[in-house]
């Protein structure tokens, strides 16, 4: 990615249930633990009901004005709908990370970096799923984001994961760690 990291603006998007908001929380927490200003803003309302959901994240060296991300540097798209919706919004020099497990997708812009991989499928193939059997493609994509940007230290990313997992789900920490590692290794 060729845009400056002093004010990192990104959006994560996908279907409800793909772990969009959770992945965003991990990223935002990593920003917080890095001692930077962060904001995390979910889409809410009817969009949440069966449709797509997304969240905006800003990690900045300065106090954050609007938490809405209008000109994202990074989009993490967990489905084709999100790819189609947000692809054009990325600023030149930015980054698109997209999961093509279900639909074949091709990069349409050459002024941004494109990372296309069947993350969910790969997670599924490697026994990285939550208790309901949903593949943890979301954490693989966070790993891919880290690999592409190193937006925080590796230790902090791990600590962010630990802090983001709610108490009643601590049993899922290890499988999430595994997913994160897989993503970083791709």
């Amino acid at each position: 990615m060729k845009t400056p990291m002093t004010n990192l603006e990104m959006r994560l998007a996908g279907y409800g249930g793909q772990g969009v908001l959770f992945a965003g929380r991990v990223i935002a927490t990593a920003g917080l633990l890095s001692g930077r200003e962060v904001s995390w803003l979910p889409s809410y309302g009817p969009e949440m009901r069966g449709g797509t959901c997304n969240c905006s994240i800003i990690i900045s060296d300065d106090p954050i004005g609007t938490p809405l991300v209008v000109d994202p540097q990074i989009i993490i798209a967990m489905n084709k709908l999100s790819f189609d919706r947000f692809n054009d919004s990325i600023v030149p020099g930015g980054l698109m990370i997209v999961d093509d497990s279900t639909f074949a997708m091709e990069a349409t812009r050459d002024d941004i970096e494109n990372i296309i991989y069947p993350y969910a499928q790969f997670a599924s193939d490697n026994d990285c799923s939550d208790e309901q059997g949903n593949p943890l493609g979301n954490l693989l994509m966070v790993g891919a984001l880290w690999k592409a940007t190193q937006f925080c230290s590796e230790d902090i990313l791990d600590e962010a994961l630990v802090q983001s997992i709610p108490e009643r789900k601590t049993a899922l920490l290890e499988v999430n760690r595994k997913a994160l590692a897989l993503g970083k290794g791709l």
Partner: protein
Amino acid sequence: MTQPQREAKRLMKGNEAVAEAAIRAGCRTYFGYPITPQNELAAYMSKRMPQVDGVFVQAESETGAINMVYGAAAAGARVLTSSSSPGVALKAEGISYLAAADLPSVIINIQRGGPGLGTIQPSQGDYFMSTKAPGHGDFKCLVYAPSTVQEMADMVGDAFEKADEYLMPAIILSDGLLGQMMEPVALPPIKDPADCPQHDWALTGTRGKRAPQEVNSLRLYPEQLEATNNERYAMYDRIKAKEQQAEMYRTDDADIIVVAYGASARTAKSAVDLARDAGVRAGMVRPLLVWPFPDDALDSLITGGTAKGFLTVEMSMGQMVEDVQLLVNGRLPIDSFNRTGGLVPEPKAIAERIEKLYKQTAEGGN
């Protein structure tokens, strides 16, 4: 005396941070009713109140909830309710009674767009409802206008303290953006409910130790009601003199003063910086309370200040602008930048309006 240490920052939603901060401010009584975008607040309370021996009741309606608040406040409790715009409108009856019976309480409004069912997206369309009087009759509420999750957490404690000091309801005028977003927040220290003010007028039963007392807003005789109203408005004057609060951002040498509160002030602040980069000396006054309105801060920028014009930024069709107009009273030009429908102002668009107003004032000055 050592100040209690604040905890390390954690990432929290505004709706949850304000709820936790209320508990830390000694609030052990909450009544609510579901409405988006404030549901996380009630959900948080339903989980936390039993853990701290507190009271949580999901009421049958907003009117039910606010009247439970009325009963609890009359019984001397530090009590909270929350809702979003249409729900707060329903609470109006009870808020009027709270004000009329001199009962402290805090009402959180996570605003959404209206009128009518409108949208669940953020808005600042309840400025009139909050600052003029959210209900029938002559009265006011203290109205806090946080613009970050941290301020939501900090202001709810202030609101409880001031509500107790002046014996009146206080409103936290927030919105869906601040309620839904997560930001790092350092939660305020924990206050023991036993350390909250105990009111001798509270209806706890006489216990055979005092005469029966009543909490009542009925004033059947005209002279009696007028005297009560006069007394209350004298107190409002004291509040206006003492409790105005505003953040002054780059106003020292500013030609154009942006006035914005809450979520829209976040964007307006970025716009001020953009305008400065473009060579316009811009600044911002951000009311921390919108009632009482920071008249003195604004006035100081006109008399003895450098202000040549004002730009209000609101997520409404222009409501706070009327308070600015009242204060400025024709002395300087005022422009207003408004977005509604859940749309949030963008820094670039505001900055352009700052530059435009600057050009107009420069021409006018020739």
